[in-house]
C-alpha cells in the first residue's frame, strides 16, 4: 500500500462506457478509493452495496467514493444498474490492473485488485489506508473514522 502522506498518483479510467474520469477532477473533495476484486459477489450487502447505503454519511464529510476493479466498463455498467449503485465504478481494464498496481493494490497471481481502501484529503494526499483480507468485506467504519478525524483536524487548525 502507498504510505499515508503520499500524494495520490493521478489516473484516468472509464466510469461509464462513454465517459472517463480523472482523479484530479475530484480535487476539492475527499475521495475514498475502494479497490475490490470483482463485480457480482454473490451476497446481499456486499462491499459496494454497503457503500451505496453509506453515501449519505460520506457526503456529510464532503467525500466521494469510487470503486475500482479490473472488470470492464460494460460489466461495471450492468453491475451498477443491477445493484442500483449511485457512485462510480472505474474499470481498471486496459492495461489490466495498471492503476491497482500503481496503488500497490493488485494481486498478480489472481489477476485482480486486492480489497484495499484509501482515503484522500481535498488536496489529493493519502490520509488513511487499509488492506483487508480479500474474503472479508471491510465495512465502512474505518473510512468514517478517518473522515471524521480529517474534519476534526481541520477544526483545530
Amino acid at each position, binding site marked *: 500500500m502507498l504510505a499515508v502522506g503520499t500524494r495520490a498518483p493521478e489516473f484516468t479510467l472509464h466510469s461509464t462506457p462513454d465517459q472517463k474520469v480523472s482523479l484530479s477532477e475530484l480535487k476539492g473533495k475527499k475521495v475514498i478509493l475502494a479497490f475490490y476484486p470483482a463485480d457480482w459477489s454473490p*451476497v*446481499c*450487502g*456486499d*462491499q459496494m*452495496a*454497503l457503500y*451505496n*447505503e*453509506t453515501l449519505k*454519511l460520506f457526503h456529510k464529510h464532503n467525500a466521494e467514493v469510487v470503486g475500482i476493479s479490473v472488470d470492464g466498463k460494460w460489466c461495471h455498467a450492468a453491475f451498477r444498474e443491477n*445493484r*442500483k*449503485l*449511485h457512485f462510480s465504478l472505474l474499470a481498471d481494464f486496459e492495461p489490466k490492473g495498471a492503476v491497482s498496481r500503481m496503488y500497490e493494490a493488485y494481486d498478480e497471481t489472481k489477476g485482480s485488485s486486492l480489497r484495499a481502501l484509501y482515503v484522500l484529503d481535498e488536496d489529493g494526499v493519502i490520509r488513511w489506508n487499509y488492506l483487508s483480507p480479500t474474503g*472479508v*468485506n*471491510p*465495512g*465502512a*467504519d474505518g473510512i*468514517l473514522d478517518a473522515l471524521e478525524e480529517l474534519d476534526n483536524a481541520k477544526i483545530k487548525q
Partner: protein
Amino acid sequence: MALKPAVGENDHVQGNEDASVELVEYGDYECPHCGRAYPIIKNIQEKMGDKLKFVFRNFPLAEIHPNAITAAIATEAAALQGKFWEMHDIVFEHQKSLSVERLLDYAAELGLDMHRFSKDFSDKQSLAKVEEDFESGIRSGVNGTPSFFINGNKYEGDWSEEMLLEVLVEKTK
C-alpha cells in the same frame, strides 16, 4: 469490533434485561439470510430462557431491498404502542409481502390503534430511529446482514443454531 453505542434505552430488548449474555442482531426485514436467522434466534431464546438478553437493531439495505425501510418503520411505529416484537415477528414471517398495504394489515391484525399507527408510520421520528440504528451499525463495523454482537463484540463465526447456541451458552459460564 465493538458495538457503538452500547445497548441503551432506545433499544428493543427481549428476554432478561439483566442476563449475563447479550446478543444484538443488526438485520434487514427483507434480507433472506435474516429470514433464515429468525427461527434460529427464536429457538435459541427458547433454549436459553432468562440467561439471554436479545436486542434487534435495523440495518435496511434499501437499494437492494425496496421494502426494508418501510417494514422497519412499521416495527418502530408498532413499538410506540408496545408491540415492537409482535410486529417484528409478523414481518419476518411474511418477508415476501411487505407492501405498505400489507404492513397496515399486520398492524390491524395486532389490534393496534390504527389512527395512531398511520400517524406514527409516516412520522419522521420513526424513520430517524431506523436511520440511527443503521448509522450505529456502520460505526460498529456491520458489513452485511445479519451481523451479530455478543456482549458488545462483533461475532464473526458461523451462526447456525448449534454453533451460535454453543458460543452463547459458553458465555454464561
